[in-house]
């Protein structure tokens, strides 16, 4: 069974530029999560989707961050415009409706110059 797929793996951009990250969850997993991991810290939840509905986006900085999961499968997280402090690893995870265990993708390492 394929794991959570994310792309790109690495992204370097200038500040004020837009950037987007893509995630495809494990097949059959209806719940999708986006986390951000700062250097030396554990991941922190940004947003959680149940199918195509964002059911918890309380930690998402909505002034510059947006996310979508239009067909309830893959998802895109966007930052516009990026700031220096957005440099981090962005992780996507998924879980099935009847199990709480979350499985993580390899992440996208973002560097904002």
């Amino acid at each position, binding site marked *: 069974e394929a794991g959570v797929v994310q792309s790109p793996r690495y992204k370097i951009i200038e500040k004020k530029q837009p950037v987007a990250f893509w995630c495809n969850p494990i097949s059959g997993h209806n*719940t999708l*999560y986006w986390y951000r991991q700062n250097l*030396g*810290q*554990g*991941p*922190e*939840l940004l947003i*959680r989707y149940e199918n195509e509905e964002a*059911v*918890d986006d*309380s930690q998402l900085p909505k002034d510059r961050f947006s996310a979508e999961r239009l067909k309830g499968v893959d998802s895109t997280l966007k930052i516009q415009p990026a700031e220096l402090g957005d440099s981090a*690893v962005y*992780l996507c995870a998924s*879980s099935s409706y009847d199990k*709480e*265990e*979350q*499985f*993580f993708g*390899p*992440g996208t*390492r973002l560097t904002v110059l």
Partner: protein
Amino acid sequence: GIQVEQSPPDLILQEGANSTLRCNFSDSVNNLQWFHQNPWGQLINLFYIPSGTKQNGRLSATTVATERYSLLYISSSQTTDSGVYFCAVERYGGSQGNLIFGKGTKLSVKP
């Protein structure tokens, strides 16, 4: 919110040694997971263990929910065990699916 504390923060072992990593949490939980983050950044699931004891090869874990702690045991450590070990919990009655991570234990296994 719930606090998750991991100890020790850093651990250096000689290959073949055994170790115990600890995770304390400040509230009741309905989900607890242990992860290994390898040097390439991938979070690898080790255990889903909100209570009880599980074993997988050289690794085992025990969660005592009533006393709010979990232990991860690594036996006969290998250099490939190096990396950061995270404990993550979901507070009982809290925002569903919101895993709160500790700061991790950085393990270095020397040959």
